[in-house]
């Protein structure tokens, strides 16, 4: 009898579970076959980009600099072919160049003697600071970015909105930009070669202008407080090789890892240069289209 009683209880529970499960499945089916099936994820979307030109004045700040920070003032000009694809150009000119703490420290404490004569700026004579001569600044020999110009393609995969404090709501998109950058840099001129001035000569610490070609990519957020004006922030990578310190650090010995009394292309090292851009955008025509 006990066995039959247990069987009865289990059978009742099994029926109850089966019916309960059926109820849940019905609700799911209703959702899948509802009137929104097949409808787009977003409707009546404001197409802030499609068919519009954008001009966005921007300020760029370099990140993680070893010897010198650069602030670029420039702009981005884009034509948005669709709401998810744009072509354009980004550029800026270096308007400020600030020495880092390390540069100041080297300037203040590095000895000016024959051992450092080819690496640390000095004046007067090749082996050290001349008596009474004005102090030569190490900062003057460090490289700086003069300008950046980059034709680029912008891809905008994500579009959404943001609620701030549950009070402010702003449309937002996230974009990825990529292109080729032409970077104007000033770095210590070549010295120590056959027909070049010796690197210990104070005149060898002058800077020369070069143009580097580098890939560039960025990722950013654009916020649309109105249909005409936008603002945003962007992370930008600009990797290329350059001699930021002006040191002779490579060129001879095993793997060329030892100084060779020359400053040239061998002394350039790869750096994953990074910038953060802040921009304010204006779009034309001033009113966006609205999706179906």
């Amino acid at each position: 009898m006990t066995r039959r009683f247990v069987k009865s209880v289990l059978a009742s529970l099994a029926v109850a579970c089966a019916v309960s499960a059926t109820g849940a499945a019905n609700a799911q089916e209703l959702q899948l076959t509802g009137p929104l099936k097949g409808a787009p994820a977003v409707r009546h979307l404001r197409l802030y980009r499609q068919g519009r030109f954008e001009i966005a004045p921007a300020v760029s700040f370099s990140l993680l600099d070893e010897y010198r920070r650069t602030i670029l003032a420039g702009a981005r000009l884009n034509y948005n072919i669709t709401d998810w694809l744009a072509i354009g150009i980004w550029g800026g000119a270096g308007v400020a160049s600030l020495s880092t703490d390390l540069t100041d420290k080297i300037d203040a404490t590095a000895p000016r003697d024959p051992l450092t004569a080819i690496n640390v700026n000095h004046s007067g004579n090749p082996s050290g600071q001349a008596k009474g001569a004005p102090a030569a600044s190490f900062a003057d020999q460090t490289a700086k970015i003069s300008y950046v110009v980059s034709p680029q393609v912008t891809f905008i995969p994500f579009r959404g909105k943001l609620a701030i404090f549950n009070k402010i709501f702003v449309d937002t998109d996230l974009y990825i930009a990529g292109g080729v950058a032409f970077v104007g840099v000033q770095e210590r001129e070549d010295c120590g070669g056959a027909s070049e001035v010796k690197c210990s000569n104070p005149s060898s610490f002058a800077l020369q202008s070069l143009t580097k070609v580098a890939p560039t990519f960025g990722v950013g957020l654009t916020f649309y407080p109105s249909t005409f004006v936008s603002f945003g922030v962007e992370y930008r990578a600009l990797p290329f090789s350059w001699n930021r310190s002006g040191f002779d650090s490579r060129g001879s010995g095993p793997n060329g890892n030892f100084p060779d009394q020359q400053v040239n292309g061998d002394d350039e090292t790869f750096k994953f240069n990074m910038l953060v851009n802040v921009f304010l955008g204006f779009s034309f025509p001033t009113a966006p289209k609205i999706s179906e």
Partner: protein
Amino acid sequence: MKQARRWLLLAAALVLLPQAAYAQKKKPKGSGAGATPAAAPAADTGAQAAPADMDADAPAPAPGAPATPAGGDQAGPAAGGDTGAGGDMDICQITPDAPQCTATKEINLGVEAKKAVRAEVYAVQQQYVIKAQRFEIQPYFAVTLNDQFVSHDAPGLSLNYYITQVLAVGLNGNWYGSLNQDSDFNFQNRRAARIAVPLNDYQASGDLNFTYVPMYGKFAGFGDFIFHYDAYIDGGVGVIRTKPIPVIDPDNRSFDWNTLVNFDVGIGLRIFFNRWLAAVLEVRDIMYFDKIENTKIQPGLAAADPVKGVWYDPNTHFTNDVQLQVGLSLFLPTSFDYTLPK
């Protein structure tokens, strides 16, 4: 025992009854049975006759018209035959606009989209994830952002409890262990300029933090799928253990770990995969006054007690350790109930 079995079966049947009633509207008072057709026994026939209370919102049938179900577009028992025993009956009465109830009526999405909407629509309807009274476990890996001399990468773990939807309290810790890495850049500077920059290793850090989540939103990816995110700021106080790497006088100096008070602030972005799992990206600044190696050597005091400031620089130095943390966020319990309707 036979009686007991019958009672059990009866109890099971009673348990099942309320499930059928959950989705039904409450019968309004005064809606007499004469306003709607009488309910026919449907369970065993598949007939589409509706219960009287489900018809309360339907227009009254014309005098003399045959009795029809609530959907109005399905005629008698035969119409129900295509979907099985009574299955469509409930669906069509609950959602008369469902496709299977309006087989001859195409839904024009363009027309539907132009219909007026209720004014009470929030920009972000009903937050995707309720965090209040849930625990968050956040394993992550941190990489140094601002120290080109020594990188201090570390695995870490955050444990948070959300007191409210926007406020959490928790602990986080980093283990730097042997992942500190003195860069080649230091050597290049020492060799070229004959100067040395004091360097420090980290062992571990731990903080008590408060987290505030002021922003949340959603993105449509490729105009196709939607995902949700939120942004938070956090800050707190804790300790960090550091020690100088002997650079200036490595032959004579060796240092022990120092436990220092730190303050930390961070800003993070959390992208939800579902209601309990998210990817996290955070930038955190751990700020403290560090003890660094003395750049001056006093030969006669080289072996003196380092506490007296011979090995250590007499001044402490304010230091920012800015990290980028990438990790996952797991919320427990994994499910929750909304307290308000959508």
